[in-house]
């Protein structure tokens, strides 16, 4: 058990640094700059939301930090080390759950742990069960993925992303496909989990209130090419309620700024 406790607490949350990051895709109608000149620092244990309309390059930015794509310019540092590819220090949670249907719930959570060297079978299962308990799915450990509801699937995906104990958690609109009730419950759960297991989180969303509820900071992005155009610090006490007045006030302030930026962008 001490072993497991050590595994759970070995790594501290990391700092993310992006310097002049750009990504250009080669398309049929010439090159398209998805992201340009992005400078960004995320402090250790900070929850940062990237907010913007679809197509503004926020998912591309996330894929760059994940190491799934390579930037065409600039550099990305995770904990001071340049990102050259995917790594278990930066785990990703996708919009679609991306769970493996041939594995059970437990098997999915075990996937990343099996690839972590020096972890005996029993310790792997112990760690996986710990995270399933954290997301409240202990009872479904041996269920098949297709038997779960959308919300439960995203919980499994969260457990799977947390299990290798990454320093950074990258979330790409993970709740976008869920109904409002499930989503609101997951906001609470995610805040609680982040309190328990301090992580540096980069969370991509197009939902203003979602960003306000979850983020310590909310960064605004505008498209063509994707740039960061605003930085809001959210200093509201946690846990936050999405239906609270202060969230609504902040959300409307952010929406106004976002509109203004888009108009500026359109006028160019």
């Amino acid at each position, binding site marked *: 058990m001490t072993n497991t406790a050590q595994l759970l607490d070995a790594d501290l949350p990391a700092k993310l640094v992006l310097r002049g990051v750009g990504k250009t895709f080669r398309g049929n109608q010439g090159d398209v700059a998805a992201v340009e000149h992005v400078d960004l620092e995320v402090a250790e244990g900070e929850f940062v939301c990237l907010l913007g309309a679809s197509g503004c390059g926020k998912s591309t930015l996330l894929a760059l930090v*994940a*190491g*799934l794509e390579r930037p065409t310019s600039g550099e990305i540092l995770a904990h001071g080390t340049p990102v050259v590819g*995917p*790594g*278990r220090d*930066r*785990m*990703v949670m*996708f919009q*679609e759950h*991306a769970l*493996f*249907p*041939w*594995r059970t719930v437990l098997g999915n959570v075990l*996937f*990343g742990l099996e*690839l*972590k060297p020096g972890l005996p079978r029993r310790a792997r299962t112990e760690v996986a069960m710990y995270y399933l308990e954290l997301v409240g799915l202990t009872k479904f450990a041996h269920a*098949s*993925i*297709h*038997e779960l509801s959308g919300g439960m699937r995203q919980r499994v995906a969260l457990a*799977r992303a947390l299990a*290798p104990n990454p320093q950074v958690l990258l979330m790409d609109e993970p709740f976008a496909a869920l109904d409002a009730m499930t989503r609101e419950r997951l906001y609470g759960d995610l805040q609680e989990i982040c309190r328990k297991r301090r992580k540096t989180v980069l969370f991509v969303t197009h939902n203003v209130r979602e960003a306000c509820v979850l983020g310590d900071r909310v960064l605004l992005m505008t498209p063509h090419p994707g740039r960061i155009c605003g930085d809001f610090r959210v200093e509201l006490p946690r846990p936050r309620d999405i239906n609270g007045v202060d969230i609504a006030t902040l959300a409307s302030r952010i929406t106004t700024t976002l509109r203004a930026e888009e108009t500026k962008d359109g006028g160019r």
Partner: protein
Amino acid sequence: MTRRVLNFVAFLLLLLAAWELLVRAGAWNAVLLPAPSTVFVYLVGAARDGTLLEAALVTGRRLGVGYALGLVGGLPLGFLCARFQFARDTIGVLALGLQTLPSVCWAPLALLWFGQTEAAMTFVVVMGTTWSILLATADGVRAIPPIWVRAARTMGSRRLHTVFNVLLPGALPAIVSGFKQGWAFAWRSLMAAEIFITILTGFGLGQMLHYGRELHAMDQVLGVMAVIVGIGLLAEQILFAPAERWLRRRFGLSL
């Protein structure tokens, strides 16, 4: 379930009874189509003296060897075609063409190349199996959502680990149906080859059919046909039904 089985058994018994009665009433020449009871007597005799079992084993061995070789060839080639455009443009297109060729068409060539040997038999079965397994594997692997591979990469999965832990299991529904189709092709091509190719190293079920005709032993022909159907059904139940049940339970598919 049991009710549906009973329905079928009752239907079969009724059919056999009608057939038996018609033969006894002299509706046709019993030499050309003997009564079920005659066929049954033949089957009991052939089962007792071991000829049937021996022939089934010879056929089974040929099928097993040819099918296994087809899998060993078809699976990796299918993977190559799924992953590399070049393989798709070359082997893939070739497979597409050869799959349309009934594999018994290889028999004349096999006879010339290998003579009247087991190798000729195996060759025909391999040609019947490989292409459908190759194509099913290629389609299955290509249909895998890219997000599965991306997710696996973020968890540290690379190259061969991805192949064995994401691509292979992810393509399993397609691969199993490819295996099933390959099995059906192998079984059909082997029967055709055994009727067509006479070889001395083993006397298979197809050859029993062939000599049954030459000897005008229609009871033997019908009996062996019944055995062939039986083996086909049994193989389906033993080899593929459990795999499909597992897939349905895990993937939640309606296959």
